[in-house]
């Protein structure tokens, strides 16, 4: 069976994606990406820019699992939201600088991912999606009830942005963006590193043909578990930054609709492209922001419509389509 990542793009493209473009092309793309990341809060309202960056890392983390291991997690809100709560609690109770709190949140997400992953990777495909969804929802219920810890329905309010006493960062969203950006970029670099490592190569092999990989001596469940935990950690970094940026954590971060949203971003950007999620996140966050002030109240119609359209007609996603066109142009 073709995996979800390969069903969208042709074999040669996938290959090109793995072998990578020419070095200079990669450098140009990298430079453009960095420029966009650095310039974003100049063009977009800074809190929105921070949202985009956090969601972008979240989408990249999901693609690490979906695009490179063929595992569709419909429960990644557990790690994004779990880390958000952990980050918030650490920041409130320990008062450490926010990057440390975020790191703590990410570690918590990884610890959380071990039992959830252990159970989930026993199944693949559709089953995996359903099992992760159910476990994440379980976490939602727990957080809702444990209101003495999480604030329940009221949310965990008053998460401080402590940053070595530098007031500009602590109070101004614009400067906070630059203080938090390194965490996001570090997370993205980590995702890139993982994809382009011996481990990443094995992941692609498992995605394409798990039984074959097993016959070569690879413990597939172990690899899946590790990438699950790594993906959870990166989602946790993103969720932690998000929590600190907003100054509070609320239950919807753990709800399955959040998992759905990040899946939408990844699919829109292009599954198995790693960076497609960044574009997907940018578009969806700006769309939600725009719709909130537009007076048009059909957010579900728009996102649902986008989802259906992309899946039916546009499976490569934006980044994937762009790459496809680029490669075709070169070939002809």
């Amino acid at each position: 069976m073709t995996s979800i990542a390969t069903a969208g793009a042709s074999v040669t493209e996938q290959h090109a994606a793995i072998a990578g473009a020419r070095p200079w092309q990669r450098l140009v793309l990298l430079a453009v990406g960095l420029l966009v990341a650095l310039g974003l809060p100049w063009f977009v309202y800074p809190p929105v820019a921070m949202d985009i960056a956090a969601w972008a890392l979240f989408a990249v983390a999901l693609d690490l699992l979906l695009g490179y291991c063929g595992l569709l997690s419909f429960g990644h809100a557990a790690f994004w939201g779990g880390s958000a709560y952990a980050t918030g609690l650490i920041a409130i109770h320990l008062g450490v600088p926010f990057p440390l709190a975020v790191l703590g949140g990410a570690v918590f997400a990884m610890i959380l991912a071990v039992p959830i992953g252990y159970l989930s990777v026993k199944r693949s495909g559709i089953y995996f999606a359903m099992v992760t969804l159910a476990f994440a929802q379980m976490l939602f219920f727990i957080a809702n009830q444990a209101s003495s810890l999480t604030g329940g329905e009221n949310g965990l309010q008053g998460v401080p942005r402590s940053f070595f006493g530098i007031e500009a960062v602590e109070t101004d969203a614009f400067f906070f963006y630059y203080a938090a950006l390194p965490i996001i970029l570090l997370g993205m670099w980590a995702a890139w590193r993982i994809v382009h490592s011996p481990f990443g190569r094995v992941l692609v092999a498992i995605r394409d043909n798990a039984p074959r990989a097993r016959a070569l001596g690879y413990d597939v469940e172990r690899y899946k578990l590790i990438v699950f935990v790594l993906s959870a950690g990166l989602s946790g970094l993103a969720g932690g930054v998000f929590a600190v940026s907003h100054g509070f954590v609320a239950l919807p971060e753990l709800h399955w609709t959040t998992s759905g949203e990040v899946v939408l971003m990844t699919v829109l950007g292009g599954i198995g492209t790693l960076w497609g999620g960044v574009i997907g996140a940018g578009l969806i966050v700006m769309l939600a922001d725009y719709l909130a002030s537009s007076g048009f109240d059909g957010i579900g119609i728009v996102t649902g419509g986008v989802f259906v359209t992309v899946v039916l007609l546009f499976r490569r996603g934006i980044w994937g389509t762009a790459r496809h066109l680029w490669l075709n142009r070169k070939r002809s």
Partner: protein
Amino acid sequence: MNAVLQYTVQGLAAGSFYALAALGLAVIFGVLGVVNFAHGAFYMLGAVAAAVLLDTVGMSLWLALIVVPVLMLVFGMLVERLLVRWLLPLDPLYNLLLTFGLTLLLVDLVKRRYGVSGLPYDRPDALDGRVQVAGIGLPVYQLFVIGVALLVCLGVWLLMTRTRVGMIVRAATERPELAGALGINVGRWVTPVFGFGVALAGLAGVLAAPFRAITAEMGSDFIIILFAVVVIGGLGSIVGAVVGGFLVGLVEAFGQAYAPTFAQVLIFVLMAVVVLARPAGLFGREEATA
């Protein structure tokens, strides 16, 4: 003892909704290999349709129990023809994503058309009140729901075992390798089967209408529980879907009675245990490890 009987009836009534809907999910999965995320939305549409038909043309519950599933059958067949079909050759995850998007669309459309506060629904007088069983009054409606669910499950079982169509569907659901070997062409049954599965979700919705809040969101948490049901029962199994549905209903009722704080979590704990002990589910087929 009285309480236990009451909880059992309540659990089975709640389980009836799960069992009917999960049965639809299982049949669709069996023949198309698609996990229909929109199943919760179809359940919601069934309830909304019943409420709207009552309000506009005064259609009673009795009639709605027939008419709405037929409407849902047609609607389901349209969805299969227009949307799901195109993705069948691809990884089944694409159809999961498609039906997820469809869910968002349907929920929002219903919200815009019928509001967010819920729709009223009155059940027929015949189903009001309670019957005395062993000295306890049991609500007639709950017993009715259980009865209908059991009847329908039995009917589906007969359909599956006694008719040629049923055998084909069952072979495709439970023994795809056999269906292939026997050279059965499952293709022409794909559309009706999808419609049939949707109709079952719609039927569950009609039954829920007098009993639960009819809102656009009523299917969103339902689908999560439904996923847990089929994971527990085994996705490829028709019996598993029904047994899983009633089991989860009972776990819910007794959990609520004796461990209210953990009632909701209990279902997922049960699911975790099943995944750990029998990854394919209680009645699921063993697959070659992949």
